[in-house]
């Protein structure tokens, strides 16, 4: 259950307290996030919405360990991110976070298989084990027959599915999706959302997603609205838990 009042359970998967993020541009201080509290439980599917510059992506970056808050703390599965060094944070990301980007961000000179294998290259898995994991991940996203294709040989929807396979191949604790359907047509967007929804419902994944699309956001269990760095509204989805994406 998602909570934003700072009174969540102590065993929440993700626990953010008093998050503040300030940038300095020229001589001016820009407050991107202000005193934000958030508790997310394992298996939750949370969507963040809000106008551009409201702090959605910054929040996602902080929760994913890509950036550090100016103030406040973030604890994920018992690990306090704000106390970790850069190197430890990288290792932590490899173990706990799967990233799905708007522009897919696949390496164009690598095949789908090689792209999905990338996160496993930093592990101690043998080549055979890596292959097994990659094949499983590509199977989950329905691209077993495209594993030797290069990104340029795939459609946008297929590229994003490869990116999803890359995000789940190391079995991370949670997935961070930054506008995963922002570059796709409606049909492909629906397919991708069905897939993400399946990851939550069938595989128990925790997903935090930034989106501008209310239809997409409606699939999440909870939609949080941000404005000028503040969480202004929290809304439970009616249909998601009951009927899923279909």
């Amino acid at each position, binding site marked *: 259950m998602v909570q934003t009042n700072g009174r969540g359970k102590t065993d929440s998967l993700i626990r953010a307290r008093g998050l503040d993020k300030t940038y300095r541009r020229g001589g001016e201080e820009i407050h991107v996030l202000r005193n934000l509290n958030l508790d997310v439980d394992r298996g939750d599917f949370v969507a963040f919405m809000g106008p551009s510059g409201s702090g959605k992506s910054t929040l996602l970056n902080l929760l994913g360990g890509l950036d550090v808050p100016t103030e406040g703390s973030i604890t994920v599965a018992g690990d306090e991110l704000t106390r970790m060094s850069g190197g430890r944070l*990288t*290792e932590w990301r490899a173990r706990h976070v799967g990233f799905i980007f708007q522009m897919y961000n696949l390496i164009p*000179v690598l095949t789908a298989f090689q792209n999905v294998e990338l996160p496993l290259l*930093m592990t101690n898995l043998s080549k055979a084990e890596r292959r097994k994991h990659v094949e499983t991940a590509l199977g989950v996203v329905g691209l077993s027959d495209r594993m030797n294709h290069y990104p340029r040989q795939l459609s946008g929807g297929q590229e994003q599915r490869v990116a999803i396979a890359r995000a789940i191949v190391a079995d991370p604790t949670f997935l961070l999706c930054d506008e995963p359907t922002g570059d796709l047509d409606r049909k492909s967007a629906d397919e991708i959302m069905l897939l993400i929804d399946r990851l939550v419902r069938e595989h128990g994944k925790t997903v935090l997603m930034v989106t501008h699309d209310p239809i997409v956001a409606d699939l999440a269990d909870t939609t949080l609205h941000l404005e000028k760095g503040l969480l202004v509204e929290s809304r439970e989805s009616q249909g998601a838990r009951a009927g899923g994406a279909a």
Partner: protein
Amino acid sequence: MKFRGLIFANLFRKKLRLVLTIGSFAVALFLFAFLSVVKSAFSVTGGAQAAGAGRLIVTGRAGLIQPLPFSHREKILRIPGVQAIGTKNWFGGIYQTEKNVFPQLAVDVDTQRQVYPELVVPDSEWQNFVKDRQGAIAGAATAKRFGWKVGDRIPIKNSLYGPTKTWEFNLDGIYHSAIEGGDESQFWFQWKYFDENLAATEHKVGWYIVKLEDPGEADRVAKAIDAEFANSSDETKSGTESAFQANFLKQLGNIELIMVTIGVVVFFTLLFVTGNTMAMSVRERIGELAVLKAIGFTDRSVLSLVLQESLSIAIIGGVLGLGLARLAIPLMSKALGTIVPRALVLSPSVLVLGLVVALIVGAVSGFVPGMNAMGMRVVTALRRV
């Protein structure tokens, strides 16, 4: 090894650029090898230097232009520390055309082999030479250059000693240098044949070569020789053969400095070209590297990826360039003939040094963009995708 696929794919991302970068490495390393061997050919080093340290060259005080009387020979031989003494006269003749330059020297047959043990002539050929007043011995390089073989008659025109006249020589033998890269360009003939064809009053030698009992005594013996003839009409100037050769080569200009300067310019040009190429390649992929870091690649593994790419280019280009040099330098040496003082020899040490240079350039050119990639902020870089 796990990154091999990624490195390989990145290398072949832009094939033309890869070919051009490897090409620039290959050309630079070829130049490096070529300049190194030319520099060696123009400097007195290694075996030649060691051999030269055991010999003194005694010239007239004014230098090679001032011949010395034959009578100095016995006086020098009496000086303690002198083991043997040889003589040489510069002939300066023309074989067929003026382009065919090679050193022709009138030598003392009695002591030549004792003074120059590293220049090897088969005994039977040497015996024929000693017996033949018009006999000659040619260095293997010169014999090969003109296609001479033992038994050939070699006419050499000369106008330095009186009216122009063609001297006829019988090629009795061919010498080889026991030292790698040693001089195999000389053409020797008997001093007696030379002397008897000059005016009766000559009996002069161009310079003396003194073989020392102990190379460590070179300075003392040289001073003793010069003191022996001080205040005479034929004063001498003595020094080690190595110093004499070095001074002689200096007259050709400071070849070593020119070679080193060109080498340094090539090195830095290569460094800037490859550094710029690597930096460009990393800049183009900054978003991809940011993704790698986001999904768990450590800073060190990103640096390692970039370094391995640049080192791969350096090794491939270096091996190509040095391989080409290995094939081409013997051919170039043949083509240059006696324009260079010694044959161009590409030694293993030059190959190793070349590879080390390639690796240093590869490492430095990959290190700077690699460090930039390592230090980039993932969030900032991802915004550029």
